[in-house]
């Protein structure tokens, strides 16, 4: 490990009332690594993402992004340091057009901040970038369509677009293929691979096919603890994982 890791979680705990959801998670993700976080329902996968992205503050422990401590910061502060996330339940700007959705997501990163002295139509960098992202997520033919009028699969693509367009280096995707049909999923995974090239990627995923196809490494989260963090082959061979998770899933026909 010569390079310094992009994201480090150090003994992170999270309690809601008396219930401990995350119980001492340690994780170190190298730049450019693609990590899939898997685990049974209620294992705390989404909570873990919420802690990293600043939606909640951890009860104890520390999180470092590019060497900077980020635990307890607000989501926008963490985003400005180069971490972006998508949501399991589609989280877009419903009454704005596809183009406006993407333009909103690039404005801060391009330094336009709270400007009320420049016209959007003259921000060539933001407009070009938003156009580029419309093409990358294959929604350029729906540029002026309101986001709420898109199909579900298109909304999922827009969700990814909003997450990626801001240019963050570390990207968390929370069940990007949730609710999609099998054929949609395979196309969508292709898209995700395309647009996340060169990024450090963490994703929560239920579909094991997706996980083994997409990830360099798999972290297995069970009852708020990471019981294995390794390459897909080694995780598959890990007896603890088989006992806790994979075995039972494979029996169910996944």
């Amino acid at each position, binding site marked *: 490990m010569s390079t310094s890791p992009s994201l480090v979680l150090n003994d992170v705990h999270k309690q809601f009332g008396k219930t401990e959801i995350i119980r001492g998670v340690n994780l170190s993700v190298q730049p450019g690594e693609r990590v899939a976080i898997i685990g049974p329902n209620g294992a705390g996968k989404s909570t873990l993402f919420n802690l990293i992205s600043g939606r909640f503050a951890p009860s104890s422990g520390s999180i470092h992004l590019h060497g900077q401590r980020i635990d307890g910061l607000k989501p926008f502060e963490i985003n400005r340091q180069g971490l972006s996330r998508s949501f399991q339940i589609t989280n877009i700007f419903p009454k704005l057009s596809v183009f406006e959705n993407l333009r909103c997501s690039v*404005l*801060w990163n391009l330094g336009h901040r*709270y400007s009320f002295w420049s*016209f*959007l139509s003259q921000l060539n960098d933001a407009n070009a970038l938003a156009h580029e992202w419309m093409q990358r997520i294959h929604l350029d033919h729906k540029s002026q369509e309101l986001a709420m009028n898109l199909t579900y699969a298109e909304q999922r693509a827009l969700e990814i677009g909003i997450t990626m367009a801001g240019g963050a280096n570390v990207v968390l995707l929370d069940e990007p293929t949730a609710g999609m049909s099998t054929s949609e999923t395979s196309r969508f995974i292709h898209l995700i691979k395309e647009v996340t090239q060169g990024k450090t990627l963490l994703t929560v995923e239920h579909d094991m096919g997706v996980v083994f196809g997409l990830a360099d490494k798999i972290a297995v989260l069970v009852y708020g603890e990471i019981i294995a963090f390794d390459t897909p082959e080694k995780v598959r061979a890990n007896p603890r994982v088989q006992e806790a998770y994979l075995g039972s899933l494979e029996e169910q026909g996944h």
Partner: protein
Amino acid sequence: MLESNRLSTSHFEKFVWLGFALVLLVAPWVFTSNLSMTMMSQMGIAIIACLSYNVLLGQGGMLSFGHAVYSGMGSYLTIHALNAVGAGTLPIPVSLLPLIGGIAGMGFAVLLGFVTTRKSGTTFSMITLGMAELVFAMSLMFSEFFGGEAGVSANRVAGQAFLGITYGPQRQVYYLIAVYTFISVGLLYALTQTPLGRILNAVRDNPERVEFVGYNTQMVRYRAFIIAGFFAGIAGGLGALNFEIVTAEVVGPARSGAYLLFTFLGGATFFFGPVLGGVLMVLAFVLLSEITKAWLLYLGLIFLFMVVYAPGGFAALIMTNLRVIKAGAFGRLNLAYAGLLVSGCVMFGGASSLIEMIYHLQLNSSMDTQLAFAGMVLDTGSKVTWSVVIAITAAALLWFDWQRKFFISQWELVQTDIAQASQSGSAS
């Protein structure tokens, strides 16, 4: 194709602005009476106030119950400045005094908005309500500044006349208001085309997501609040010059409520909605109150009616119907509209007869039981009259509701056809 569309859009926009300027310019030569001059002056002020309110409501999703605080404080600071100009202690031309109102509105928005905009949604609304009550209570406590019951009055013919403009005649005041209105509307429209304006829309739609694309939603709301405060203050300042008196009601809850009500009636989802709202506000306050004593009741009923049946306000009604007309499908709605209109008129006639009879009973019963209304003589002492009016109103209500359902079914058919046509058009 796209380019030519964009070009024609910008041409269209230029025409709209030119038309707006022309209307402001020509209006006092078309409507020359004193009443219309006063009303047009008030309309300009109300347009600025409602548009500034809509920065919060329509563009930022912030339901404020205390916007009159900022227009009202603008009014007070302006009237005090006007008195200072009159006393010779403040060397500022009267034409620029509304800017003092604007700065005052902005200053109070900076101060109070910092707390107010920390939260969104219901909490935001509650805090604005508290702030409004606070300032209104203070206006009764500090009579030195707020003028107590009598308010603060001033004479706008003050300082050096510039190019013979003294602001003595109402027409000169109107033109001052018109200039401020045109510039304010222009600037507020420009705001909607800037990064802050767009992110404000995003905050309205989905504040959580905005935080995850790098924006501090609290700061977005705060900035929008300050801008809204500035333009509210401008409106307040113009009001002070127009009326030459400012009383505590300008910061009162009724005024705040009126901004909300008429911005909503005009249509918060379109930029020009509050312009309609401002015009409606003055029509209602000046004309409707002349026609009937029960005008506030009518206003409340119209508001209820709009909230239930046309939550997009008049602007949305106009825009959706324009879309139907453009698609050449308006003819298909003739029957449905005629049904709505006739049943609506009967319903309105019945309901307003009832309202007028009740008011007559309450206010004038000692004089006479006869009430002349809309060419009829209604006898409030007769049980037969009451039963007939109630029966007609109830029947008309049912009839209208039936017509409404028929209209909606027709409307949806037309909308589906238009959507299909536009889709096949864009696909080809």
